[in-house]
C-alpha cells in the first residue's frame, strides 16, 4: 500500500532549479533510500516531504491526503518525523529532556495544570516519561540519559536525534544522512537500530545516505537523483545495474575508459 507519493515535484530557488519533475512512491513499512551525488537535490527532496520547503509545482500525498501546502508541524501531527544532517538538538539540555520535548505533540495538559504539575498533568508526564524510557532502552542509550547533549560524542548525538524523532511516535521517519561521519562500529550500530525501528515498530523509513554498502544492504527501494532529476528508481539491484546511475557516479569519461 502506498503511504507517500510525490508526483512531478518542481522546486526553484530564484533562478536555480533544485528539483524538476521528480516522482516516486513509498510503500508502507519499507526502507526507501534517496541517493545521488553532492548537490543532486536529496535534502531538498526530503525538505519538500517534511514541509520545510514548498515546491512550486507538483503534489505530495501522504496517507491519501494532499499535504503539499501543509506546514511542517501539521505534517508531524499526521505522523511524520525527521532527523537532520547537521544535528538539531537542544545542546544545553539533557538527553531525556530532548526526548520529552519530542513528546510535546502528544501532551495535552494545559498551561495551568502543566505549570502547577498537579493531577492529570502528573500522570501524563509519567506516561510520556515511560515512553521515552522505552526508546532509551531500545536505542541503548541508558548510560547517557542524564548527560547534556552538547557534551556527547558525535555518534551518540546522532543516536539521540533518532531517539527524539521516535519520541514523536511517527508512522513515517525521514532520516537525512543518519550514518554521516560515523566510524565503522557506529555505522553498524546505527544500521541495526534503523532495521529494528523498521521491523519491530513497523515504521516506514525514507533516508538519504552516502554509504552505498548500507543503502544496498538495507533498503527495499532506491531513488537516484542527479541535478534535480530522478535518473533511476527501483530495487537496489536494478539501480546498481542502471547505466544512468553509473554515469552519474563515475562520469562519462571514466565510463568510456571502462
Amino acid at each position, binding site marked *: 500500500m502506498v503511504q507517500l507519493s510525490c508526483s512531478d515535484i518542481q522546486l526553484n530557488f530564484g533562478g536555480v532549479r533544485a528539483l524538476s519533475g521528480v516522482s516516486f512512491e513509498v510503500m508502507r513499512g519499507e526502507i526507501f533510500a534517496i541517493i545521488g551525488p553532492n548537490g543532486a537535490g536529496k535534502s531538498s527532496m526530503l525538505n519538500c516531504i517534511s514541509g520545510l520547503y514548498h515546491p512550486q509545482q507538483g503534489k505530495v500525498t501522504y496517507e491519501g491526503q494532499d499535504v503539499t501546502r501543509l506546514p511542517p508541524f501539521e505534517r508531524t501531527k499526521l505522523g511524520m518525523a525527521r532527523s537532520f544532517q547537521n544535528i538539531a538538538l537542544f545542546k544545553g539540555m539533557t538527553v531525556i529532556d530532548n526526548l520529552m520535548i519530542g513528546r510535546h505533540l502528544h501532551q495535552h495538559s494545559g498551561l495551568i495544570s502543566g505549570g502547577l504539575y498537579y493531577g492529570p498533568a502528573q500522570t501524563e508526564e509519567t506516561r510520556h516519561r515511560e515512553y521515552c524510557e522505552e526508546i532509551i532502552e531500545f536505542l541503548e542509550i*541508558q548510560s547517557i540519559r542524564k548527560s547534556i547533549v552538547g557534551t556527547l560524542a558525535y555518534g551518540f548525538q546522532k543516536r539521540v536525534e533518532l531517539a527524539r524523532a521516535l519520541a514523536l511516535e511517527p508512522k513515517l521517519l525521514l532520516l537525512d544522512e543518519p550514518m554521516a561521519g560515523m566510524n565503522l562500529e557506529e555505522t553498524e550500530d546505527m544500521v541495526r537500530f534503523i532495521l*529494528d525501528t523498521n521491523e519491530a515498530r513497523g515504521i516506514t523509513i525514507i533516508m538519504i545516505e552516502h554509504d552505498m554498502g548500507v543503502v544496498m544492504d538495507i533498503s527495499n527501494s532506491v531513488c537516484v537523483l542527479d541535478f534535480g532529476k530522478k535518473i533511476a528508481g527501483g530495487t537496489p539491484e536494478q539501480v546498481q545495474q542502471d547505466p544512468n546511475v553509473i554515469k552519474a557516479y563515475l562520469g562519462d569519461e571514466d565510463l568510456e575508459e571502462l
Partner: protein
Amino acid sequence: MTFPKTLKAQAAQLGTGKTALRKKGLGIWQNCSWLEYLENVRTLALGLHSLGFAKGDKLAIIGNNRPESLFAEIATQAAGGIPLSLYHDSSPKEVAAALIKFDVTVAIVENQEQVDKLLDQPEQLPNLHRIIYINKRGMRKYSDERLVTFEAVQGLGTALGDQRPELFDSLVAAGKGDDTAIICLTSGTTGEPKGAMLSFRNLLSMSLAFNEADPKKAEDEFVSLLPLAWFGEQLMSVAVPLVAGYTVNFPEKDETAMADLREIGPHIMLSPPKVWESIAASVRVRMMDSTPFKKFMFNTFMPVGERYADCILTGVSPSLPLKMGRLLADILLFRALRDRLGLSRIRSALTGGSSLGTNVFRFFHAIGVNLKQLYGQTETAGIICMHRTGHVQGSSVGLPLAGTEIKIAENGEVLSKSAGIFKGYYNDQEVTRQVLTSDGWLKSGDTGFLDSNGHLTITDRTNTALTLSDGSSFSTQYIENNLRFSPYIAEAIVFGGGSLPLVALIGITSRAVGKWAGDNKLSFMTFADLTSRPEVIDLIAGEVTRVNATLPDLARISRFAIIYKELDADEGELTRTGKVRRETVAVIYRDIVNALHAGTETVPVDTSIVFPDGKSGHIRTTVATRKT
C-alpha cells in the same frame, strides 16, 4: 536443604514484604519480592519440566547477570537438573566446548548475541535440544526449531501448574542436600577450565559459616556486577542471600554499572583484586585531571590516611594525634571520595580470587574502606580463611571459617577440610584424585604457614615463586603487584630466576598513558604506536626504577619491554576473570622474553591478532627493550 527449599521457606516467611532482587529497568529500580522470586522460579521450573527436562539434566546459562539468571538457576535445581553458568563474553568455540564437555541439553541465554554463538557452530551441538532466550530483540527472523522464549516456557509452566498444583512442591521435595547444586567452572590459569561439582550442602554450609564470620543483615544491599560464572559471584548473588536475606541489585547495563552502584551504595562487595586495583588506579588517574585545590587536599590527607592504615594493618594502635588527623581527613576528603566510588555505605568489602597487592590494601584502608581478604578455592565452595573486622593484617589471609580445618603438608602445601569440600570435577575422576586425598583433604596448590594465633599466611600461590641467583626464593607476584600499583601499568609479568636475570613484560593502561601522552603533547596513532614511543618507555622505566628501589638487589627487574597490545581473554592471555595465564603469555611473547634475557635492544614483531569484534588484523612494529 536445597536452594529451592530455602527459597520456599524465605518466601513463606518474607512474602511480598521484602525485596529479594532489584533490577533497573526504564530508568527506575524495579523490585522483585521473595514471593515473586519464588513464583518466577516455580513457573520456569514447571515449564522446563513440561519441555521434558528431567533429573540430572544439565542446563547452561549464558548472558549478563539479571534476575532471570537466578530464576533459571534455581528453577533448574527445582526441576532436578544441574545449572552451569558461562561467561557472557565467551567465544562460540569456548561455549561449544563447555556445552559438549558438560552434556548440556538446554541453554538459557540472554539475547540474540548469545543465540548466535549457539547457532553459528560448524557442527550442530549434539545434546542441545532447547535454546531459551530472554530478550526477544532482533529474534523475529530466526526459525531454528530449538528456539523458544523465556516467557513462553514460563507460560507452559503456569499452565502445567494450573493442571497439577502439587507438582512443583513434589519436585522440590525430591531434591536432596547432597545433590549437585551447580557445576562451576574453575578459573583455569593453568590449562582448560574444569567443572567443579558443588552440592547444596557444600554451598549452604559455606554460606552459613561465611555469614557467621562476616554477618550480613537482611536490610543490606549488594550489587551483582561480576559474572555469575565466577564462583565468588555465585556465592554472593545466589547462595548467601538465600540464607541472609539481603537484596541483590542488578545494574541496567554494563555501561551504567558504576552509576548504578553509586545509586545503590551497597553494604557488601566481593570482587577479585583486579576490580579493587582498577578502582584505586582510577582515583589516581582522576586526581591527575583534577583542580589544584583537589590535588592539594588529596596530597595532604592521603599520607595521613596511609599512616593510619599502616597502624591498622600491622595491629598497632594509632596515636591520638594520628586519630585526630585521620578524623579531619575523613570529614574533609575521604567521605566525599567514598561517595564518589559508591562505597559510602560499605561495611563488608571483600577481595578474593588471588592475592591483592599491599599498596592497594593500604589505599582502601586509608580512605576508610574496611577491605578484607578472603582465601579459598571454588573446590572448597569458596572460603577457607578470611580476615575478621578489627583483625585485618596486610600479610595474612586471616583465620579459618568455623568448621574448616587447615593443615600444612610436609611440602608446605595448604590443605583444608570442611563441609564445603566439593564432590569432584565433572567426568574427571583422575584430576579429582589429584587434588582430593582419600581422607577428604583438599590440596590447594598454594604454600603457606600458620602463625601462633592460627592466622594463615600464603607465601606463594600456584608456583609463581622463583629462585634468585643466591638460591633464596622470591614471589614474582609480589613484584608484579607492586608494578601494577602504578596507574600507568595494567599488567606486569615477571620472567627469569635461577641463572637468568629478572625481566618483565609490561602492559600499559591505555587510558592513563593516553592521557599522559595528551598532557605532554605527544601524538600517537594506535595503541601499538603509543607503546613504542621512547617517551612512554621512559615513563615506564621511571615507574620500574621506583619499584626496583623497594626490592632486594637480586629481585630487581633488570630489563623490561612494553607489550604492543592489550592482553585479551579471547586470545587466552587472560582468564575470563582477568588473571594472567603466564604459560600462554610466555609462548606468545617468547621472542621478546628471549630478547630481554639476552639483552637485545630491539625485537621486530610481525603478527596477526584478533580484535574483540572478531576481525583479525596485522601488527608490524618494533618492540624496544630497556635496561633499568
